[in-house]
C-alpha cells in the first residue's frame, strides 16, 4: 500500500530523480570538515522554525518586548527551550558558518569553477552576521540596547555619509520604537528571504558542479 502510493507519487513528481541528484550524487573522499555546509543549512532551518515559534508570543514594541520575553521564559510551556534553542542556535550558526568559510578558504575550494558559490557564500556569511546584529536588539534589555547603540555608532564613523547611515539604521537619531520595529522586520523578513534565496543558488551550484577534493601537496 505504502509502496504503491510512493510509486504513484514518484511517477508524477520524479522523487527518485531528485533523490539521486541531491543525495546520491558522487562525492570525492573527504573529511568531517565537509559537513559544515549541511550543519549550516540545518541550523538555518532550526532558526527559522524556532524563530517562527517565538513570533507567536514576542511583541516588537519597546514597552512590551522585554515583558513578552519574560512571559515566554517563565509562563509558556517549553518557552525557555524554544528561546534557548534560538539564542544558542544563533551563536552556533555564526561559528559554524564561519568555520565553513575557513574550510573553503584553506582547501582552496573557492577557485574555478566555484567562484559564484564562494561569492554567494560571502553574502550568506554577512547576512548571517546581520541576523545576529538585528536579533540582538529584540530582547530590549540593557545589553541589546547598548550593543545596537555601539553597532550603529560604528556605521556612523564612515566618512561623510556615516551619520546619515547611522540615522537610517536607527530610524532616527536614537534607539526608539522605530528602531525596534525595523530591526524586527529585517530580522524576520528581509534577511531570511535573502538568505533563503542565496541558499537556493548556493546549493544549486554545489549540486551542479559537485564538491572539490581535498587538495594534495604540490597542487
Amino acid at each position, binding site marked *: 500500500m505504502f509502496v504503491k502510493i510512493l510509486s504513484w507519487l514518484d511517477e508524477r513528481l520524479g522523487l527518485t530523480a531528485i533523490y539521486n541528484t541531491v543525495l546520491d550524487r558522487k562525492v570525492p573522499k573527504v573529511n568531517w570538515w565537509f559537513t559544515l555546509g549541511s550543519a549550516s543549512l540545518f541550523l538555518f532551518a532550526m532558526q527559522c522554525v524556532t524563530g517562527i515559534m517565538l513570533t507567536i508570543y514576542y511583541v516588537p514594541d519597546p514597552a512590551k518586548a522585554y515583558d513578552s520575553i519574560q512571559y515566554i521564559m517563565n509562563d509558556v510551556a517549553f*518557552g525557555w527551550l524554544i528561546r534557548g534553542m534560538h539564542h544558542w542556535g544563533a551563536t552556533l550558526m555564526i561559528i559554524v558558518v564561519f568555520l565553513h568559510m575557513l574550510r573553503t578558504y584553506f582547501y582552496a575550494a573557492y577557485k574555478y569553477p566555484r567562484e559564484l558559490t564562494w561569492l554567494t557564500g560571502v553574502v550568506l556569511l554577512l547576512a548571517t552576521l546581520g541576523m545576529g546584529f538585528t536579533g540582538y536588539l529584540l530582547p530590549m534589555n540593557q545589553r541589546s540596547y547598548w550593543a545596537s547603540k555601539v553597532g550603529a555608532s560604528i556605521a556612523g564613523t564612515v566618512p561623510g555619509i556615516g551619520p546619515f547611515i547611522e540615522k537610517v539604521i536607527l530610524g532616527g537619531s536614537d534607539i526608539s520604537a522605530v528602531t525596534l520595529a525595523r530591526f524586527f522586520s529585517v530580522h524576520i523578513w528581509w534577511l531570511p528571504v535573502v538568505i533563503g534565496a542565496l541558499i537556493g543558488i548556493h546549493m544549486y551550484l554545489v549540486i551542479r558542479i559537485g564538491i572539490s577534493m581535498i587538495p594534495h601537496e604540490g597542487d
Partner: protein
Amino acid sequence: MPGSQHELSRNGFVKVVTAMVGTAMGAIIGIPAIGYLVSPATKIQKSDAWIPLGPLENIPLGEPTLFSFTRSQVTGWEKTVNSYGVYVWRKNEDEVKVFSNVCTHLSCRVRWDAEKKAYLCPCHAGIFDIEGNVIHDPPPRPLDMYAESEGNLKIEEGTLFIHFVGG
C-alpha cells in the same frame, strides 16, 4: 556476503539510523512545540476572590455606602487594572447586604440618591429601591446582591468580605 537478504547493507544501515535519529529529533522538538503553542489555553485564570471591605463596625447603619476596589488581571505580558464599586447597606445591627453598582440593563454605574432613597442609573433612567429591586424600567432584573443567605458574603472577625466573581 554483502547485500544478501539476511544481512543489513551499509547503505541500509545508514538509512535506518538516519530515520531513527530523525524520528527522535522530530519527537524531541515536536512535542515541546505543541505544548508551546497550546500553552495559553491550558492556563486557567482564577478571577474570583474574597474581597475585604473593612471592619463592619465602621460602616454606617441604614444608609448605603459606596466602596471601591480594584482588581488586576495579568494576561500574557499585559496587566489590566479594573476598578469596581459596591454599595454596602447595613439594614440593621444584624443584617448587611451589598449591591453591585452595575446597572443590570447596560452596565452603567448606578448612584445612591439619599433624598430619593433609590439607586438611579444615569443612562436610561432605570431606578432601583434600597433592596435593589427595579422600580422603574428598563432594567430587566434587580441589582446583583451579596448576602449571607446567598453564600457570597461573610463576616470574619468583624471584617466584611464579599465573594467577587470577575467583572
